[in-house]
């Protein structure tokens, strides 16, 4: 019963945040233009609030003129309702033609241009101004939480040396009995 109530609470919060995110958000993308003149990729990890971006096609990058720029979106993590928590967004820019870019998501935003087969180019990391809210604070009766801290990780892996050595030794011994 407690779990049902918790789930219902989470669902309610998600519905609230989804309703709040129905209008399109517009965030400024800032990055440093490289010193050379030419094409490069601007790439960054962007986090979204729960329910804001249903899938990778519900966001886009636009330039100062409002035109959409082709983007490659790689989903890193999702919220438990399936909406995007974080995604790697990459788009091409040119340092000889500086422009201002904005990330648009939410509402009825639909990405039309995808970055397809492309070249290996230098990458400049960008950040998003006014980063989206990614942490939900909620009071819930969760009961006791047990936290186990593992302070001996090394032995967990080094013991593999014993079977590894034994297997290699057995392989060599058995190989010597085999005709070439």
């Amino acid at each position, binding site marked *: 019963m407690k779990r049902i109530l918790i789930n219902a609470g989470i669902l309610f919060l998600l519905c609230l945040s989804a309703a709040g995110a129905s209008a399109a958000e517009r965030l400024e993308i800032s990055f440093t233009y490289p010193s050379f003149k030419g094409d490069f*990729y601007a*790439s960054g990890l962007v986090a979204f609030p729960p329910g804001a971006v249903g899938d990778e096609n519900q966001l886009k990058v636009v330039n100062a003129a409002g035109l959409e720029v082709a983007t*490659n979106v*790689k*989903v*890193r*993590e*999702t919220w438990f309702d399936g909406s995007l928590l974080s995604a*790697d967004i*990459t788009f091409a820019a040119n340092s000889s033609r500086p422009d201002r870019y904005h990330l648009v998501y939410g509402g009825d935003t639909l990405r039309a241009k995808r*970055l*397809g*087969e*492309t*070249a*290996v*180019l230098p*990458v400049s990391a960008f950040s998003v101004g006014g980063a989206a809210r990614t942490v939900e604070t909620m009071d819930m009766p969760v009961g006791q939480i047990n936290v186990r801290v*593992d302070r001996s*990780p*090394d032995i*967990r*892996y*080094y013991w*593999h*040396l014993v*079977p*590894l050595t034994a*297997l*290699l030794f*057995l*392989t*060599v*011994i*058995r*190989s010597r*009995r*085999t*005709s*070439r």
Partner: protein
Amino acid sequence: MKPRRRITLSRRIIQLACLILLVYGGYLFKGRLAGQEANVGEPPGTGGSLFPDLKAPKGAMSTTQFAPGSILWPSGATPVLENYPPTLVCRFNPKGGLFKACIVHFFSENFTWQTHLKYLLPHLTLFVLLCFLLGRFWCGWVCPIGSLGDLLSWLRRRMNVPVRRFPAGFRNALVFSSYGLLGATLGISTFIGLPNYSRFQCYWFLPYCQICPARLVCPVFGLIKPGWKDFTNGVSATFTLLAWLVLGLFVAAFYWGRRVWCHLCPVGLVNSWFNRGAGLELHKKAVKCNKCGYCADACPMGLTAMYEADTDRKYNQNGCIMCLRCLEVCPKDGCLSCRFFGRRVLESRY
């Protein structure tokens, strides 16, 4: 008279099943993938598993810094089993991801990342265990590239193109070349992992993977377009051209011969080191042999030691891919047998 053992038919069924499972098996476990993505960015070994995730260390040049579309761009599919059993599916298999990658990829990547030995040990132990049990069984029964090669050989037979038998010297040259390929791959991977030379990583990361036929074949299995025209700089263009050349050689090798590529494959080479000591064994009872030569004719790797043998012994050769074709065609009951740690599993029967 036809052989009573239908080993080849069983092998074909298993190859097909493995191909489907390895390439598309990740879909069976899609629900688990989202959970696994949660530990992205954590240092290795913090996941609480005996098999830690081997990911690029923070701050190091990693695949995630490369441009999308280049062959170095990560596939995006998280493997369900973050392990490295002997020779598993390719990093270019984008939509499957049941397992992670092949052992050459494993070594290359982690040499470049300079992953600590303790994190490699669990994976190496699992790899050695499977090789110790089965030897080069993977090559003959599971490898998707080998299965594709067998398909090409089947086409050759359907078109009545005679098979070419390559001399032992040529096969030995291929094996030496595979040592060269493996050495160069590991050498380059280690070199670009050194702090002073990390600037070369954007060109030389995973050098063997960049020319492996799987680079162009595995994405096709995964129903996406392979990175076939990366000509952005001299090194990438060279690797792309080499990849096409190697793919051409791969197709030609399987078309004119049988399993010729398997002599050159560095993955098969690493597996072959365990073949003679493996639990899966091929035995011959020399007194029953009538020297008909069927086993030598049938061997897709062109091995003749079994045919030439005059004593009752185990004849696991480094090149043997454990396809058991020799056992299938042997016309003498009980002359050849397959054993698992000495226990008889199969024997020739007409």
